[in-house]
């Protein structure tokens, strides 16, 4: 074997007593792992290109297949994990930057799991959400500082343009291009039914989806793909993407292979051309430039839409957020470093940025210290896995959360971390028509609605347990959290007490 030989990560195990040679696995695998040997009349597999997406396992009618971690391994070494060594082989061979998709799989601390939620006992009653109203509606946007009255004492102050969410959950930015049209349709229809919003990402908005405009957030990112006047006006809010949690400080790259006719038209770029979003916005080199873009977009939409500024959680996030709050933005979205991506350099994904829990806690506190917390809403994303994470995020100070990885999982994503290959067997992160059609938006949107409704039920249940009947009364209510197994410094940053205190 050559020195750069990399043994497959997985073994495809086929139980021949169960296999009926129907060939479904072969037809379903875009990575061409499975094949049929005519002469021997057997189904074969070569796991070299297997990404462990579990499509064949799920589709096999006789449960004849399983994918297991390959048993072959390099000599165990405490300093050099097998992946470290294989990555060196790959770079020595190709000389390129390593690419990955979705959120980092590395074992960083998940602070959500180190915080516990309070409940009422004796001194105040818990509330049963089946018997009493339980409110999860959230208004996102800038709030007026001062009430004004006319001579008769009538209030003349008006709410600024804002987003109204029936659930404190929105679908985070994923571009048409990085994900399929059917995935987008599922998200749009689910947002409409749920009374919330989905986000176009930096890929423009397909004309077919303009009808979901009142549940759409349109994104303006550094490549400005698909941005035009009608696009800006069709959505309910505009998001300026400054950064993404999975790849702070760098831009984006959608390979030409994914730029087929409709994507090309929507993005307003030639077919087959790579879509490269620059690392910075080249008209924003400083905070005062951001202010100009915020107001340009407000001018373009006649001051009828709230503007969101999305940033990656980085070391100095609190000061940056404070600057954004003073730049005319209505909502700040913060994306944590465990957030997903359609493609990112592995080293960036796994090493740049900070956990969203700490970023959120410090941003919320900073904005309060500066008395400007009510000038902006805070939306956090990047690793929200369930309703308990949402409760904890709101208690730390978030107004609402963004979910994307979880939404894709509801659509069938099995976290194979191979979006960048464009051969998603689940019809999500691909533009191949034969694969895209595997995702039925009619089914997809219902699954998204189910997921969010289920989470919202759980949120109501936990709120009731705390004796709270509106999510507003949980926002920033950090006494409802206690840390477990956290050091003093971590507790200080999170602004919470340790369990038992």
């Amino acid at each position, binding site marked *: 074997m050559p020195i750069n030989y990399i043994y497959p990560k997985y073994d495809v195990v086929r139980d021949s007593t169960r296999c009926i040679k129907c060939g479904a696995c072969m037809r379903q695998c875009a990575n061409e792992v499975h094949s049929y040997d005519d002469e021997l009349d057997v189904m074969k597999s070569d796991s070299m290109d297997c990404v462990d997406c579990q499509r064949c396992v799920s589709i096999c009618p006789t449960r004849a297949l399983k994918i297991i971690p390959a048993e072959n391994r390099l000599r165990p070494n405490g300093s050099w994990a097998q992946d470290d060594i294989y990555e060196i082989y790959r770079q020595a061979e190709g000389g390129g930057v390593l690419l990955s998709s979705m959120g980092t799989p590395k074992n960083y601390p998940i602070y959500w799991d180190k915080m516990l939620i309070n409940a009422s006992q004796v*001194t*105040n009653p818990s509330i049963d959400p089946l018997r*009493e*109203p339980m409110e999860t509606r959230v*208004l996102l946007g800038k709030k*007026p500082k001062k009430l004004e009255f006319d001579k008769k004492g009538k209030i003349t102050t008006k709410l600024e343009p804002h987003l109204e969410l029936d659930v404190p959950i929105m679908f985070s930015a994923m571009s048409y291009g990085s994900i399929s049209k059917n995935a987008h349709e599922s998200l749009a229809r689910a947002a409409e039914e749920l009374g919330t919003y989905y986000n176009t990402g930096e890929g423009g908005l397909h004309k077919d989806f303009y009808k979901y405009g009142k549940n759409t957030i349109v994104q303006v990112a550094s490549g400005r793909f698909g941005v035009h006047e009608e696009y800006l006006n069709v959505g309910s809010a505009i998001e300026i993407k400054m950064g993404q949690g999975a790849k702070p400080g760098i831009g984006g790259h959608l390979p030409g292979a994914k730029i087929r006719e409709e994507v090309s038209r929507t993005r307003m770029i030639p077919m087959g051309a790579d879509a490269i979003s620059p690392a910075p916005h080249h008209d924003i080199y400083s905070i005062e430039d951001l202010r100009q873009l915020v107001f340009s977009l407000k001018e373009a939409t006649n001051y009828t839409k709230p503007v969101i500024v999305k940033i990656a959680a980085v070391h100095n996030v609190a000061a940056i957020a404070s600057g954004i709050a003073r730049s005319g933005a209505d909502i700040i979205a913060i994306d944590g470093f465990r957030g997903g991506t359609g493609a990112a350099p592995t080293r960036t994904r796994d090493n740049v940025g900070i956990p969203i829990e700490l970023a959120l806690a410090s941003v919320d506190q900073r904005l309060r210290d500066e008395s400007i917390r*009510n000038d902006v809403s805070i939306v956090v994303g990047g690793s929200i896995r369930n309703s308990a994470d949402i409760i904890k995020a709101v208690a730390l100070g978030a107004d609402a959360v963004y979910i994307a990885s979880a939404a894709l999982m509801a659509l069938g994503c099995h976290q194979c971390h191979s979006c960048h290959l464009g051969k998603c067997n689940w019809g999500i992160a691909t533009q191949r028509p034969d694969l895209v059609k595997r995702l039925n938006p009619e089914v997809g949107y219902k699954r998204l609605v189910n997921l969010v409704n289920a989470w919202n039920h759980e949120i109501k249940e936990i709120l009731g347990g705390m*004796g709270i009947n509106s999510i507003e*009364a949980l926002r920033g209510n950090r006494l409802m959290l206690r840390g477990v197994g956290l050091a003093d410094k971590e507790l200080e940053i999170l602004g919470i007490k340790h369990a038992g205190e």
Partner: protein
Amino acid sequence: MLLKEGTVRIPSGCAISGLISRDGKRINGSEIVKSISYMHERSNGLGGGFAGYGIYPEYKDLYAFHVFYEDNSSREATERFLDRHFDIVNLSRIPTRKHKNITDEPLIWRYFVTPLPTKLAASQLDEKEFVVKCVIRINTHIDGAYVFSSGKNMGVFKAVGYPEDVGDFYRLEEYDGYSWTAHGRYPTNTPGWWGGAHPFALLDYTIVHNGEISSYDANKRFIEMFGYKCNLLTDTEVITYIFDYLNRKQHLPLEDVASVVAAPFWNEIEDMPAEQREKMKLLRGMFASLLITGPFSIILGFDGGLMALNDRLKLRSMVVGEKGDVVYIASEEAAIRAICPDVENVWSPKGGEPVIVKVNGGVNI
């Protein structure tokens, strides 16, 4: 080690009572003491207190500061501070009588003051804001000093003990006022500190409160953006600040303040006429973090009136009744009947429905 109030949050259940003469007639303090004593079982001897309005007619244009001191050095430091910022027209110990159930009393002093015009002008604040800033300054920065009453022509009297003993201790039968509120406390911990008793007061706003709010830290962290410091970590303190902020600083009428802290549900708002719907949406949007959840019944005392309010689910008992020009409010009807056996029109206000009573229909007295 047992933590002192202000370093730890202590929830408590309670009894409240209040009465007001709509005609501005002055009612003797012994009435309210008798009323609250009938709810003895609702407190546990760890806090009681009263607020009386119209009790200092001879000094009605001066701020009356009631102050607890741990020792003479905190008193001297505070008096130096007061001297620098106020014209002190009168000062004395607050008259008390020894009571077998009231022990470990701090030094209790009263000052009638008015801001020094030069200091006030230099501060660029309006008079009330100047007074608030000074009170918060003393309570936050002078160790062992605590201003627990700071309004005009009104005063708070409170201590650790059962309320009827506290009333006796402060000789409330020597005061007459057009309105009174009272509180008996049932904390779930041993605070042992007089400042933690109710009513909590700022300027002429006083709050007596029965309940334990679940929105506490959300309310606290929001209101602290506007110059308030929640030193006591009690519900009553933060509720008082919320009323002060919305009513005095944002000029929001009390009816609307009630719609912020005990906001109508969104589905009720949807059904309102357009103009009202817009207003409620604005108030809920703007002051979302001032929504108070969890059980509470409160009586807010203010210059010339009382307001009673329950949480929007009505998780605490509270009844209102009237007789002649006097309106009575209490946790239990027994507390009203104790002093007005033939009270009329007794009713339980709905959750979130404010009952606002003003002397002379709100005309200044």
